[in-house]
C-alpha cells in the first residue's frame, strides 16, 4: 500500500539514505530501528514530506508520489506523531487538532468554535481521551499531549480517501509503564483504521508491538525480520554490527566507594511543593541514583545541589562546607558538574566549538586577568578528545554538528577536565544509541575510580540498578526507601517499582 523503492537522499558531503526499500501493508505495524545517525529520522522525514528524495521512488497504492511538504503527505494519508512537543502550547486542544485544516468549520470567514469542539471530541474519543477540547494545550500532561497528537493524526481518516500510514517517533520514551501499555492497546485497536510505523530505541517494545521490523545502519536497511521470530539480541547485533557485551553496565568495574569521604550531604532538606525532609550522603567513588517517576521531586533535588534552587529548610553541605548562597557559579566552584537531560539546550552550546564548550564552566582556569589562554584551552580539548575518543574533526569543530553521543562526551569532558568530582547526571544516556551508552557507562566507572561521586537520574530502571552503589526511591517528594546496590547485592526491578508507585 505504501512503498519506497531504492530511495536515495543526499546532503552536502553525506549520502544519508542508500537505496532504501521499505514497504507497509494495510493494518500493519512495522518497526523501524537503528542507532542514532543510522538514517532513521531522515527516512521518516522523506516519508512525511519534510525532505524530498533524490533518487528511487515513493509509491502510494502503487502510484508514484512526491511530497513537497508535510501537508501534501497528509493529503495522501501520511501523518506523523512527533517525539515530543509538537503541539503548540498556547493554542487550545481543538485548534491544535485541526491546525491548518480549519476550513471545514469556517462559514463566511467565521470559525464555528462549537462545531470544531464537537469534531474535536469525536477525534479525542478515538484515542479514549476525555478532556475539554477548549482547554489550553500547555495545561495537559505529557501523556495526554501524546494522545492528542495521535488524535490529530487520526483526523486524516475523515479527510483523505484510502488508508492511513502513521509514523510514531519514539512515542514511549517519556511515558510511564502503564501509559505505554495504554498506548499499545490503542495502537492495536487502531490497526483497522491505519497502518503504523513505530520508531523506537526500546527493542523489547518494538518486538512486542510490531509485525515486522526494519533494521537500519549507515543509511541502509541491513535487515528486515518478522517480529515474532526475532530476538532483541539479534536485532541489536545487526544495529551495532557487533556483539553486545554481556557486562553491559560494567558491573565488573564497580568498586566499593570510600565511605570516609563525604562529598555532598543533605540534611532534612525541604523545598515546599517540591520535596521535603530529604537526607542523604554522597561519597567519593559512589554512584547514587534517585529513582522515581517524573515529578517525584528527584529533578528538584538535583537542581538544589547544583545551586539552581534554594533550600527553604534544612542544610546542604558540599565537601563539609555548608552552602549559604545557592548559585550555579558557587556550586561549580566547589566542584559540582551538571550533565543535563536537555543536552542540546543545556548541555552544549551549538555554534561554539569543542574547546570553547569544554572550558565554558572553568574559564577561570584558563585565563589571567580575564584574558583567555586559548593555546592551553586547545591543548586540554585535544587531550580529552583523545581520552574519550570524541569523534570530532578537531577541537575547532562546531559542537552543534556532533552526534548526540559525542556531544555528551564533550559535556562530560567539560566537567571532568575542570576537576569536578561531584557529577550530577540527569538522564545521561537519553536518546543515545547502544555504543554511545556503553561509552557513557565506561566513563561513569572511570570517574568513580578517580574518586568522583555521582548523583544519577537514570533513563531506565535497569540502568539505575546496573550503575548504582546506592539507590534512593523518591515518591511525592520524600525518600521512600534506600537500597544498597553494591556489586552482587543488587535489588530487582520489582523491588524498586514496589516503592515507586
Amino acid at each position: 500500500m505504501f512503498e519506497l523503492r531504492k530511495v536515495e537522499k543526499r546532503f552536502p558531503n553525506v549520502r544519508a539514505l542508500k537505496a532504501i526499500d521499505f514497504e507497509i501493508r494495510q493494518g500493519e505495524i512495522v518497526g523501524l530501528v537503528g542507532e542514532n545517525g543510522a538514517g532513521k529520522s531522515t527516512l521518516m522525514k522523506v516519508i512525511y514530506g519534510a525532505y524530498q528524495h533524490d533518487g528511487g521512488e515513493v509509491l502510494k497504492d502503487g502510484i508514484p508520489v512526491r511530497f513537497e511538504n508535510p501537508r501534501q503527505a497528509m493529503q495522501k494519508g501520511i501523518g506523523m506523531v512527533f517525539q515530543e512537543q509538537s503541539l503548540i502550547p498556547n493554542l487550545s486542544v481543538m485548534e491544535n487538532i485541526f491546525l491548518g485544516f480549519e476550513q471545514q468549520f469556517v462559514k463566511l470567514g467565521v470559525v464555528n468554535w462549537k462545531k470544531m469542539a464537537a469534531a474535536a471530541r469525536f477525534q479525542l474519543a478515538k484515542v479514549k481521551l476525555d478532556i475539554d477540547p477548549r482547554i489550553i494545550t500547555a495545561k495537559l500532561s505529557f501523556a495526554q499531549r501524546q494522545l492528542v497528537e495521535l488524535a490529530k493524526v487520526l483526523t486524516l481518516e475523515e479527510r483523505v480517501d484510502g488508508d492511513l500510514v502513521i509514523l510514531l517517533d519514539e512515542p514511549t520514551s517519556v511515558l510511564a509503564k502503564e501509559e505505554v501499555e495504554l498506548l499499545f492497546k490503542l495502537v492495536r485497536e487502531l490497526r483497522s483504521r491505519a497502518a503504523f510505523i513505530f520508531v523506537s530505541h526500546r527493542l523489547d517494545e518494538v518486538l512486542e508491538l510490531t509485525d515486522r521490523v526494519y533494521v537500519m545502519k549507515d543509511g541502509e536497511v541491513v535487515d528486515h525480520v518478522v517480529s515474532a521470530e526475532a530476538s532483541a539480541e539479534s536485532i541489536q547485533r545487526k544495529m551495532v554490527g557487533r556483539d553486545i557485551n554481556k557486562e553491559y553496565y560494567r558491573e565488573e568495574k564497580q568498586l566499593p566507594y570510600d565511605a570516609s569521604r563525604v562529598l555532598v550531604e543533605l540534611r532534612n532538606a525541604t523545598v515546599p511543593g517540591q520535596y521535603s525532609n530529604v537526607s542523604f550522603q554522597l561519597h567519593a567513588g559512589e554512584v547514587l541514583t534517585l529513582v522515581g517517576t517524573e515529578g517525584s521531586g528527584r529533578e528538584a533535588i538535583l537542581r538544589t545541589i547544583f545551586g539552581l534552587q534554594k533550600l527553604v529548610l534544612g542544610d546542604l553541605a558540599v565537601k563539609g562546607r555548608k552552602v549559604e548562597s545557592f548559585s550555579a557559579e558557587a556550586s561549580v566552584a566547589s566542584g559540582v558538574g551538571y550533565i543535563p537531560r536537555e543536552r542540546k539546550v543545556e548541555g552544549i552550546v551549538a555554534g561554539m566549538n569543542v574547546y570553547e564548550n569544554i572550558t565554558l564552566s572553568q574559564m577561570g582556569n584558563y585565563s589571567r586577568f580575564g584574558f583567555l589562554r586559548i593555546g592551553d584551552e586547545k591543548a586540554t580539548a585535544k587531550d580529552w578528545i583523545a581520552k574519550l575518543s570524541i569523534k570530532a574533526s578537531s577541537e575547532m569543530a562546531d559542537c552543534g554538528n556532533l552526534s548526540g553521543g559525542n556531544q555528551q562526551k564533550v559535556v562530560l569532558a567539560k566537567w571532568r577536565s575542570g576537576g569536578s568530582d561531584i557529577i550530577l547526571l540527569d538522564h545521561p544516556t537519553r536518546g543515545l544509541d547502544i555504543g554511545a551508552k556503553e561509552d557513557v557507562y565506561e566513563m561513569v566507572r572511570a570517574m568513580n575510580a578517580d574518586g568522583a561521586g555521582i548523583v544519577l537520574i537514570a533513563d531506565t530502571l535497569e540502568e539505575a540498578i546496573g550503575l548504582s552503589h546506592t539507590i534512593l526511591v523518591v515518591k511525592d517528594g520524600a525518600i521512600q526507601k534506600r537500597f544498597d546496590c553494591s556489586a552482587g547485592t543488587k535489588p530487582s526491578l520489582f523491588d524498586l517499582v514496589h516503592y515507586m508507585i
Partner: protein
Amino acid sequence: MPNLSFRGGDLQRWAPLLVLVALVVFFSMVNPNFFSLKNFARIGISATPPLMIAVGATFIIIMGSIDLSMEGAVAVCAVVFASIFMALGGTLGGWGWLALPACLLVGAACGLVTGAVHVGLRIPSFMASLSMGFVGIGLSLMMTGGDRIRVEDPLFRSLLTQRFLGFPLMVHVAFVVLLFAWFIQSKTTLGRNFYAVGGGEDLAHASGLNVRRVRIAGFALAGVFYAFGALFAVAQLGIAETATGYNFMFVSITSIVVGGTALWGGSGGVWNTLVGVLIVNVINNGMIVMGLPRYVQDGVLGLLVIIAVVLSTDRKSLAFVK
C-alpha cells in the same frame, strides 16, 4: 494549590488594566480636570491613530515577528488617500469616498510587499520592515515632492468635529475597527493561525500550516490597519504628508508591550493593545495636565513604561528574556 497559582496568573492578565486605572486615579487626584468626559475625548482623539497602527502591529508581534515599517506605510497611505480624494473632487459627498477603499488597498499592498520581502528573501522581519519603511517614506516623498496635501472637506473632517456621546466620530469608528480586529483575532482561521505561528513556527509548519502564507497575510492585514491609522491621522490634522507617519514606530510597539502582548509572540491580543495605547496616551496627557516640565517627560514616560511592563509580566513563567 494549583487553583491559587491560576488566580495569580489571572491577576497578571489584568495587570495592564489595573495599571491604567491606577494612572487615571493618580492623575485625577493631582488635577481633577483630568477626570472629565472632555479630557477623555481628547485622549481618545490622540489615541485613535496610534491605536489603529498598534493593532495592526499586534498581529505581527503575536506571530513573533516585528514590524517597523509603519511610519512609511502610514505616510504612503495618507498621501495616496489625499491625492485620490482631492483628484476625485475633494469631498466625501462626491466620488471622493472611493479614496477610502483605495487607501485600505494601498495599506494592504504595502504590508504585502514587506511580508513578501521578509518571507521571500528570508530576511528577519526587523530588517525587512525597517528597510521597507524607508522605501515607504521615500515613496510618499516622491509623490508629494515634500509638500503637504490639505484635506478640508467638512464631511470627512466631521470624523473629528462631530461628536456623539461626547466623543468625536473617529473614536466611535475606531472602536468599530477594533471590534473588526478582535473578530479577526478570535473568529477567523487567519487570526488563530497568527497564534499558532507565534506559539511554535516549526511545529505549525509540521502540522501542515502554510506558515509563509500566514506571515505574508499577517503583514498585509497589518497594512490595512496602518491605512486606518493614516485615515484617522489625516482626519485629525487635516493634512496628509510624509511626516504623517512620524513618531508611530516606537510608540506603537511600546504600547503593545505595555498592554501585555509579549514580544516573543503567541500571546496577547487587540484588547491588550487597546489598554496599552491608552496607558501611553494617558501618561502623555497626564504629564502635561499635571504640569510636568517638558524635559522630564521622556524620563518619566520611560520609568512608567518599565513599571507597567514589570507589573504585567509573569516573570516566573519566563526562563530568560532577550
